[in-house]
């Protein structure tokens, strides 16, 4: 129950933060970072639930007025990235998470560009510099976010991101 409340609350918070920044014309996928974290720490089912909740918020409540929660596809790709990172990358360093941190904004942006943008080439040219900046900031933010959420999870008695690899080895 605590885990469910935790996921719903933090997903809503991330969606709100992302939508607020979008209102100022800034692209920064907070929800995707949280989904990446949940996918590694809690597994695929909670991650897909968080992704669906976030996609509904981003696509229906946001200014893009999509007919379907297309962002779910982008967030599913992020879940895929989290599994790749968990299973294929040997390093356990949090600092190395700058790499998926930098990749996530591009991944989410490209998928959103395909499904949400009406004038894709114009949107691509306009937004590319902003996404590069978001990618740079995300490479710093993701390790910080993992550390912060792990600290919170420890206090709440929930699974930790940093334990995910150990658990995988034990299985």
């Amino acid at each position: 129950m605590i885990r469910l409340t935790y996921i719903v609350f933090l997903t809503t918070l991330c969606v709100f933060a992302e939508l607020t920044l979008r209102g100022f014309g800034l692209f920064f996928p907070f929800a995707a970072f949280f989904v990446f974290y949940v996918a590694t720490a809690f597994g695929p089912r909670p991650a897909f639930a968080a992704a669906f909740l976030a996609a509904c918020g981003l696509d229906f409540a946001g200014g893009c007025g999509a007919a379907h929660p297309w962002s779910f596809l982008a967030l599913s790709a992020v879940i895929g990235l989290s599994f790749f990172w968990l299973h294929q990358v040997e390093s356990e360093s949090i600092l190395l998470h700058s790499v998926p941190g930098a990749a996530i904004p591009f991944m989410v942006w490209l998928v959103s560009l395909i499904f949400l943008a009406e004038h894709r080439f114009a949107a691509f040219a306009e937004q590319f510099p902003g996404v590069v900046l978001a990618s740079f900031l995300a490479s710093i933010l993701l390790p910080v976010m993992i550390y912060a959420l792990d600290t919170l999870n420890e206090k709440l008695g929930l699974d930790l991101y940093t334990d995910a690899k150990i658990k995988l080895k034990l299985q």
Partner: protein
Amino acid sequence: MAFKKSNQLRDQARYSPLQLLAWGAGLTLVFLILFGIYSTLRRTATRVSADFYFPFLKAARMAENAVADQALVLQDKNTLAKALQKLMKENAMLAAERTVVMDLKKENAQLRSLIGLERKGVFKPVFAEVLSRDPMTWQEQFTIDKGSDDGIEPGNPVVTSTLMGDGTVPAVAVIGKISSVSRHTAHVCTILSQDFKMSVSLPESKSSGILEGARNASDMYSSLKFLPLNAVPSEGQLVYTNAFSGNSPPGLPVGVVVAHTGIAPSSSRNQVYFETDVRPFESPAEVRFVAVYVKEKK
């Protein structure tokens, strides 16, 4: 002595009221003439003395400026650099303040223009503010903070304030239409969105057509299609809404016919109808306050 004084008083009392009135008028006239002479003299004296003293005053000011300039030159580089830095900082602050004031001025003009909106037949304006946007569809879509609770329905036209004519006449122009509504919010597809379609009229050429969203948002033009072959629109012609769809009041300005491609403003499509480009009066990217014309329910 007392007797003499009482005689004088008796003499004065002998003046008739007409004489007293004449005395009064005469004194007033004298006073006015004196005042006129004084004013003329004063003005002349002011002008003469000002011009007379000008070279001396100017010389003193020039000397003061020369001394100040020399003193500035004599100051060391560090002091000058510090002074320059301080001035640059002040300049930047003033520029920022000016930008804020200009924004507020524009916002104020927009709100005043929207508040002045009146009912158009069965349509009444509902005022709203842009609630959220998405960078992915910044030009094409946005969400407003009013919904079905305020009577908004899909298809209602959305207008915003703009400046028409030579950029000085405040007016409202169509910026988009409602594509979907929830109880408290409504989604607007702008005039540049591919989802936008609206029946419009060109009063000058007495023709009507369908306005569709842009092929390319960066061009900032919408396409006006299905115009009859015998009504070729000229560049600069105004485009208005019509009442054909029943969703919008007629006569709302939508845009102006343009020939941005460098060729003729209109081109025939299969020789069946004409097609032309229309530039909206306001860029949807800059819109913050809007009004939605909703049909009043009986």
